[in-house]
C-alpha cells in the first residue's frame, strides 16, 4: 500500500513536470511579442523597448526563461500580468479561486445527491416507469450542451420571469443557475453509472446470502448493495474533476461569474500569456492531485485493492 502510494505520487510529479513543459512550449509558440501587447498604441523608442524586454526576461533563451518561471512558480510566484500592467498573477488567481471552488463544490454536491438515490431507485425498480424516465433523462443529460442550457435558463428565469439575476456573483440567487447548469452533465452521467453498478451488485452472491439469512430488504439494500455500488462512483467523481473544470469555463463566461474560468477566458482574449500559463498549470495540478487522492480513497475503502 505504501509503495503503491509512493509510486502514484512519483508518477504525479513526472506528469506535472511534463505539463509545465508542454504549457510553456505552447506559450513560446504563440505569435506576437508580449511587449507589443503591453505597450499597445503608445510610441516607445528602441531603447525603452529593450529595457522592458530585459526587465521581463524576454531576451533570454527559452530554457532559461522556463527554469526561472518554474522555480518562481514552485515558490508561489506566478509572475505578473503583462497586459494588466504589473498586477501579480497570484493575486488575480486567489481572488477568482473562491467563487470557482464554491461553484464546483455545490455543483458536485447537487449532482451526487440527485444521482445516487435516482440511480439506486431506478435499478431496484428496474423496467418501471421511473426507471425508463431516469434512463431517458440520463441519456439526454449527457448530450445537453451546457452553454445552451445556460442561455435558455437566462432567457426563461432572468429575462422573462425576472426571478434570478442573469450575471454576476454575491448572493445565493447568483449561484442557482450556474450550479444547476454545471451539475446537469454530471448528474446524468452519475445516475447512469449508479444504476449500472447497483444492478451488477444486486446479482452477487453476498446479496443473496444477506437475504437468505433473513435480513430485511432495507438493510440488504443499504448495508450490502448501496455500499458496494458506491465504489465506482467514488472513482468517477474524482476523475470528473477535469470535466467539471472544463464546464466551469463555459458556465462562468455565460453567467459573467467572476471565477477562474472567466479570468482564463478574458486572459485568452487579451493574450495575457502569464495568466493563461498560470491558470492552465494550476488547473492540471488540481486534476493530478484529485486523481491521486481518488486512487488513495479507493484503496482505503476497497480492501481488495489494498491486498494487491
Amino acid at each position, binding site marked *: 500500500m505504501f509503495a503503491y502510494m509512493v509510486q502514484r505520487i512519483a508518477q504525479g510529479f513526472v506528469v506535472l513536470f511534463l505539463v509545465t513543459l508542454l504549457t510553456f512550449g505552447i506559450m513560446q509558440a*504563440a505569435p506576437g511579442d508580449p511587449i507589443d501587447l503591453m505597450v499597445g498604441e503608445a510610441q516607445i523608442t528602441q531603447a525603452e523597448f529593450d529595457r522592458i524586454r530585459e526587465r521581463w526576461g524576454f531576451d533570454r533563451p527559452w530554457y532559461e526563461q522556463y527554469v526561472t518561471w518554474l522555480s518562481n512558480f514552485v515558490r508561489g510566484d506566478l509572475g505578473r500580468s503583462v497586459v494588466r500592467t504589473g498586477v501579480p498573477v497570484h493575486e488575480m488567481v486567489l481572488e477568482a479561486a473562491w467563487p470557482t471552488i464554491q461553484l464546483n463544490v455545490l455543483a458536485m454536491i447537487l449532482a451526487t445527491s440527485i444521482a445516487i438515490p435516482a440511480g439506486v431507485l431506478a435499478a431496484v425498480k428496474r423496467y418501471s416507469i421511473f426507471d425508463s424516465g431516469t434512463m431517458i433523462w440520463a441519456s439526454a443529460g449527457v448530450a445537453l450542451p451546457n452553454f*445552451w442550457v445556460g442561455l435558455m435558463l437566462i432567457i426563461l428565469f432572468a429575462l422573462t420571469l425576472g426571478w434570478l439575476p442573469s450575471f454576476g456573483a454575491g448572493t445565493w440567487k447568483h449561484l442557482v443557475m450556474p450550479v444547476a447548469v454545471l451539475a446537469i452533465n454530471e448528474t446524468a452521467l452519475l445516475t447512469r453509472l449508479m444504476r*449500472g453498478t447497483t444492478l451488477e451488485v444486486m446479482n452477487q452472491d453476498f446479496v443473496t446470502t444477506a437475504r437468505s439469512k433473513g435480513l430485511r430488504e432495507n438493510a440488504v439494500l443499504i448495508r450490502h448493495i448501496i455500499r458496494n455500488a458506491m465504489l465506482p462512483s467514488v472513482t468517477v467523481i474524482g476523475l470528473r474533476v477535469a*470535466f467539471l473544470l472544463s464546464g466551469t*469555463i*463555459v458556465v462562468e463566461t455565460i453567467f459573467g461569474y467572476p471565477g477562474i474560468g472567466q479570468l482564463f477566458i478574458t486572459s485568452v482574449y487579451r493574450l495575457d500569456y502569464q495568466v493563461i500559463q498560470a491558470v*492552465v498549470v494550476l488547473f492540471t495540478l488540481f486534476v493530478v492531485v484529485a486523481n491521486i487522492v481518488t486512487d488513495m480513497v479507493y484503496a482505503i475503502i476497497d480492501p481488495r485493492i489494498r491486498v494487491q
Partner: protein
Amino acid sequence: MDSNPNLDVSREGAAALIPKELIAVERKRRSEFSRSWKRFLRFKPGVVALIFLAFMSIVAIVPMAFEPQSFTATNPSMRGEGPSAQHLLGQDQLGRDILSRLIRGTRYAFIVAFAATAISLAIGVPVGAAAGYFGGWVDTILSRIVDTLMAFPTLVLLITLAAVLGPSIQTTVVVIGATVWSTYARVVRADVLSIRERDFVMAARAIGANDRRIISRHVLPNVLGPVIVIASLSVGGIIILEAALSFLGLGITPPTPSWGGMLSDGRSLMRVYPHLAIVPGVAIFITVLAFNLVGDGLRDALDPRQRE
C-alpha cells in the same frame, strides 16, 4: 458456445479445393458481423438514431439540396423576424434565413467531428498498441505522455491552443484531434496488454511471425470492437467541444455558419431576439444524442463485456 463448424469432418471435401485457412476466416467474419448487426438492431433507439444520422450525413454532404434560401443573403428590413412561411425558423440579426444556416452548419459540425476523430484514431491506436505490446520503457514513456494529456481539462487545452494558433476550422480539427486521442491510447493499451498473453499470439510467434505481423493481424483486429464503440461515443463529445469553442469565438469563425457560432450570436442578442439562441442548441442536442445512442447500441453489439 457452439462447436466450431469449420472443424466439421463432412466439410473436409470442400476444404480440399480451397485453402482451408481462407474459408475459416471468411466464414467467421461474416457470422461475427451479422451476429453483431442483429444485436445492434435489437436496441431500437440506436436504430432510429442511426437512420437519423444517415439522413444528417446526406445533409452534411449536399446541404445545398436542402437549404430553402441562400444561407448568406442578408435582408436588413427583416432583421430578427420570427418564423414565417418563407423562413420556417425565422431570420437572424442580419435577416439571414436561420434554417438554411443551420443546414449549412451541419456540414461543418460533421467535418470537424469526423476529421478530428480520424486524427485521434490515427494517433491513439498506434500509441496504445505500441505501449501495450512492447511494454518496458516504451510503455513508461508513452503512458506518461498519455497521463500528461489527460491531466489537462480538455477545453482548457483546446482554448489555449486555439488562442495561440489562431481560430479557424483547420485549427479546430487539428487541435481537437491532437487532444482527445489519449482515450484511445489508454483503452487500446489495456486491451493489448491482455491480448498479448493469449495463446493465439504465442502460436503466431511460434510459427515465426514478426512483431509487425502479430500486431496488425492478431492484436489489432481484437481491439477493433472497443475502439469503434469509443469512437462512436466520442463523436458526440467532439461536436459539443467544437460548438463550445465556436461559441467562445475560438473555433469556426464567422461568416462560416456553425452551430456554436449561431449560439454565440444568440447570446449577444438574447434580449432583443431570444429565438436566435434556441434552434442551434436543439440541433446540437439532437445530433449528439443520436451519436450517443448509436454508440450505446454498438457497445451492446460489439463489446459484450461492457454491457449494462
